[in-house]
């Protein structure tokens, strides 16, 4: 009896310690106004996160494996319980790492400008290069994909690329930055100059250890009709959306302010912190090594031997 009591007390202590730790983590996260959201959830607003939090995610220095969830969101599986299986997720991660060992997939976010070279059997020279702004990142695991948008000859062009597609030869991040929203689909209804990028853009170099810059550019939309009801989306990167009174009323009626208090909804749509830790602990060292080699390569590329004068 005494032994059992002792045991329970010990368990209690361990638990409380764990709880304290988790509380600490939660507090720190709460300070950042964010929980460990999975990639597939539309709720996490990386854009809405305060600048303090942005600074904490230092480039090339992801000391905490848990910070990888912003850099590599596709490593978190689909949180739907009916699709989950631990072995499948493990095998999928191994395949992703195998592909990453053959191609350098840089760190990028929605709002970054990328150049993608794809082998295309129908293109002259059998390969194709496209430059554009990343307006959306979705999918998890090997299904991860992103959409690039550009305006070519006054015509908006969007291309969806699979991140782990072996026909992709090269992905370059020409400008690494974040925008205020986690989806820039409103650029489709914005003037063309906001999504026009020249194909011979030079990659911009950011010094190591600095946080990812946030571009707080505000866009003015073109007059209606629009592709979506933007007034309902709570967009940070759009300047004054003006709609008529009826649409305004409808938008107000469609608001769901209680959803942020729906703990069960958040629970269902996210991967628990403990599982995230487990996942990133598995791939962290490999990802970190890949990152270091990438930085070395970049340094070699940027270093230009001074010429002898005289």
């Amino acid at each position, binding site marked *: 009896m005494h032994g059992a009591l002792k045991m329970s007390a010990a368990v209690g202590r361990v638990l409380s310690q764990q709880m304290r730790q988790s509380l600490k983590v939660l507090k720190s996260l709460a300070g950042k106004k964010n929980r460990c959201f999975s990639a597939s959830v539309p709720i996490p607003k990386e854009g809405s996160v305060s600048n303090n939090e942005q600074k904490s995610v230092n480039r090339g220095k992801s000391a905490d494996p848990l910070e990888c969830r912003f850099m590599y969101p596709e490593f978190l599986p689909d949180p739907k319980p009916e699709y989950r299986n631990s072995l499948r997720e493990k095998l999928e991660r191994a395949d992703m790492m195998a592909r990453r060992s053959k191609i350098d997939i840089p760190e990028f976010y929605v709002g970054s400008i990328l150049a993608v070279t794809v082998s295309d059997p129908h293109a002259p020279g*059998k390969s194709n290069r496209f430059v554009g702004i990343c307006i959306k990142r979705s999918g998890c695991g090997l299904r991860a994909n992103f959409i690039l948008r550009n305006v070519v000859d006054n015509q908006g062009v969007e291309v969806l690329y699979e991140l782990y597609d072996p026909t992709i030869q090269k992905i370059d991040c020409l400008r690494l930055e974040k925008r205020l929203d986690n989806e820039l689909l409103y650029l489709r209804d914005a003037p063309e100059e906001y999504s026009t990028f020249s194909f011979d853009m030079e990659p911009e170099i950011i010094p190591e250890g600095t946080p990812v810059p946030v571009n707080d550019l505000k866009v003015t939309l073109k007059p209606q009709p629009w592709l979506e009801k933007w007034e309902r989306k709570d967009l940070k990167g759009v300047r004054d959306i003006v709609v008529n009174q009826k649409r305004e009323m409808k938008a107000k009626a469609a608001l769901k302010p209680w959803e942020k208090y729906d703990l069960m909804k958040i629970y269902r749509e996210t991967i628990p912190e403990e599982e995230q830790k487990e996942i990133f602990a598995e791939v962290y060292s490999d990802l970190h090594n890949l990152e270091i080699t990438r930085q070395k390569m970049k340094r070699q590329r940027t270093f230009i031997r001074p010429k002898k004068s005289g």
Partner: protein
Amino acid sequence: MSLILKTLTSIQSFSNLLKPGIEVTTLAKRGAKRLNPYPKKRHPGWLPRPTHVLYKDDITPENTKFIKEVVETRFGKPDVGLGMQSKSISPLRNEPIEPQTEWKEGMRRTGVIAKKIGVYPMWLKDGTKVLSTLLQVIDNHVIRYMSPEEYAPVIQRNNIRNRLGCLIVGAESMDPQLFTKEYCGVFNESGVLPKRMLGRFLISPNAALQPGTPLYAAHFKPGDYVDIRGKTIDRGFQGVMKRWGFKGMPASHGVTKTHRRGGNIGSGGTKARVMPGTKMPGHMGNRWRVFRGIRILRINTKYNVIWALGPHIPGETNSLLYMYDTVLPTRKPSTAPHFPTYLPSIQENPVEEELWAEDVHRFDDPCIEFIEETK
């Protein structure tokens, strides 16, 4: 007088019995030939009831611990993790039998029981993206073999020459305390833990295996074609649009109350009735379905996982299915498979951890590049 009357009535009543019963009315057997029969569980006569009601017996924690210890010392742990096979070999059958005959065309091997664990994309060497379903061969052991004479199928075949035997295979070891004593007795011959699922495969007598033999994913080879039998996802009572893919009716232009309905189900006149087999709303899914001729793209021999081409294998994720060599005549193997099964002990050189079909792009291969044709 009364006695005479009594005898008379008794005789009358007796003669009533002798008369043919005209009160019995026979009903015409309707709907005997169903288009879509419900899944029936044909319970084999030799198989006792597997589970029983769990009573809360007064077992002390020490007793449960002791039982667990006994089970683990005898059989090893039931769950090694990630659905991997426990290393402990059946104590009764340490030596697997040597294959007696060479494989010939037309011989039928056993199948395996697999668990559907998910779907994810793979790429072929020509750059096309395909979806693959992952199937884990989960802790399979041969439980029993019945010779063709012993195993008399329910429907007697006229063809007596090619009679097939029956091999019973079990998947996923479980705690024996969950099952009845009689069901646990089924596994006495093979000496393995009671299994969650049993399946019978009709095999040619040459392909018989000794009870207790483990089956692995390497039973198949990449590039082989298999048939997969599983229970489809239970979707409940569904309308005609979801169940049969009807088009429905217009959303507007004066249409009221009939947007997702099927419309007319038959004509009047001479055939004033609903024809049998008419597609109508009803219960959808939860049926046994066989999907034939699925190609195997890749095999992992460490975790016993098979990547099969296509996302539409019957069943939910984490459900168990039967997998066996295809019966489609054009997709049957022309070269010899592992016959009667893959036995690692008698194999000269063990198989690699990852086996790939020829046209599949491996994830650690360099990027796909197309070469320009020079004229």
